[in-house]
């Protein structure tokens, strides 16, 4: 097993665990964490696939893409946490819009 394949398979496992967590965990915070885990799995696959031959330097494009992906994931997690906080910290009854 090459290290590249190792990383890629770990990424696939992380992605699958994250996705199943999203669908099967009841708690919202666990769901948010699961999405993050699945995201990390995809990023790991992406970075692992950048090194296609062991002797040549890795392709920089996937790394740039993963950086962009991380920014997106951070923003989405921030929004999810803000909504989660709103739900758990403000249980006051409000009129229906």
């Amino acid at each position, binding site marked *: 097993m090459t290290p590249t394949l190792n990383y890629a398979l770990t990424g696939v496992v992380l*992605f699958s665990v*994250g*996705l199943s967590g*999203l669908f099967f965990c009841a708690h*919202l915070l666990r*769901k*948010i964490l699961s*999405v993050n885990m*699945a*995201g990390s799995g*995809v990023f790991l*696959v*992406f970075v692992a*696939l950048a090194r*296609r031959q062991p002797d040549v330097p890795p*392709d920089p*494009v*996937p790394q740039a*893409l993963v950086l*962009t*992906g991380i920014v*997106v994931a951070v*923003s*989405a997690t921030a*929004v*999810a946490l803000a*909504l*989660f906080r*709103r*739900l758990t910290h*403000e*249980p006051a*009854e*409000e*009129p*229906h*819009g």
Partner: protein
Amino acid sequence: MPVTHADACLVWPIVAPLATALAAFVLGGRWSTRLGVAVVPIVVAATAVVTWRVWHHGPQTYSLGNWPAPLGIELHADGLSCAMLLMSACIGAVVSVYSVGYFEGSTTASRGQPQKDTGAQFWPLWLMLWSALHALFLSADIFNLYVTLELLTLAAIGLVVLTGTRAAVEAALRYLLAALAGSLLYLAGVALMYGAHGTLDIASLGRSVTADASLQAALLLMMVGLMLKTALFPLHFWLPPAHGSAPAPVSALLSGLVVKGSFYILLRLWFDVFPQEFTRPLTLLPAVLGAAAILWGSMQALVADRLKMLVAYSTVAQLGYLFLVFGLARPGSDTGFAAWSAVVLFALSHACAKGALFLAAGTILHVAGHDRIRDLPAVSRRLPTTFFAIGVASVGLMGLPPTAAFVAKWTLLRVALGGGHIGLAVVIVLGGLLAAAYLFRVLAAAFTQPGVVDTNVSYRKVPRWMEYSTLGLALVSLLLGLASYPVIELLRIGSPWSPPIVQEAAP
């Protein structure tokens, strides 16, 4: 390809709303409304210019900052992009006009209507959404499609929670988690495709992909992710609460435009990138789910007791029609183009009709404080223009002649019967009848029952342009049928069915 000054017109539909969104966010208050309204004609003009260039000179490509494809970001516009841009410009313009009235009353609101500075929050988010949507329709590579898809989702989430009610926050969180799962599935597909082919550009992927296991996995991941984001039955669970609890202009945008974004990506990948022998074994899955969506969504709309939920479930049903394209359109055949263009036409027509219905539902909610279908008779006397708009939009949604939905359904029916898909043909007809049934529930409540005007209930005044903009959008959905021919000719430009591009001189 040398970059000319004229190709730079592709950036304007993206940059104009984005820059205005930032300015509106920074300045806030009344300025956000003023800026938001001011940018509408600019965006409409920009999309018109792009369409004009594509119509006369064929598909356009522009490299941002003059960096070519592998590292730089390229924009690409063909007939399909232009049709989507025009749809977005039209609905966006009408919703903007409507929103001025809708949120203006919000400063003196009561009874659960929008709170104080909702309007100032609405404009930056909506302009971001508009910009992200245009970037999505103009993206030339699959990773930028991912980024724009996420931008679209984040802006949409912000808009859903504008009312600030608990129900809205719950719906938004559910929507966000579903959307994130969808995007990650799509991104995993992108990773596999890049790993196998070393490019992200749609056009070069289309030329270089070979049928292998990694491509198969990529197709499946992307398909499931995008079906989740487009709320295809049975992955539609997040849509009705999110679309039903958002403020009316937002519901119109979500149902009319946002779900079309992820559908557009699937449409493009399916016909532009993946080889035919690859997609053929899978054609039945989206088509059968689409048929199930038509039946299930219509049933739910038949039993809904609130107008906004009825309209939201109707969206689930109508989105089902879009997915029939994967079962009916065969690459390389003449009927393939007919079915493909019919479905795009259907998407445009649905966007206008559904937008108008959601705006009308919002006006009713705004005026009466409720949108219960059984209590509509009392409201209909007060809002003749809005209820007339509901009638017109219903005609567009049911697909009666001469609307574009009729032209589209007729074509789909012809292709389905010609290809021996009797089951799909039955569902197409049945879906139209069911749409008529649930829409007549609203029309019957509004027009046939004697309205008891309850003097105890106080009704709010409604700004005129809210009603007129709704009617305008409904009329567009009706008149689009008369313009189907030029729309289909526009779609032919750069489509997978068009002959290889020959640069021709403008007439």
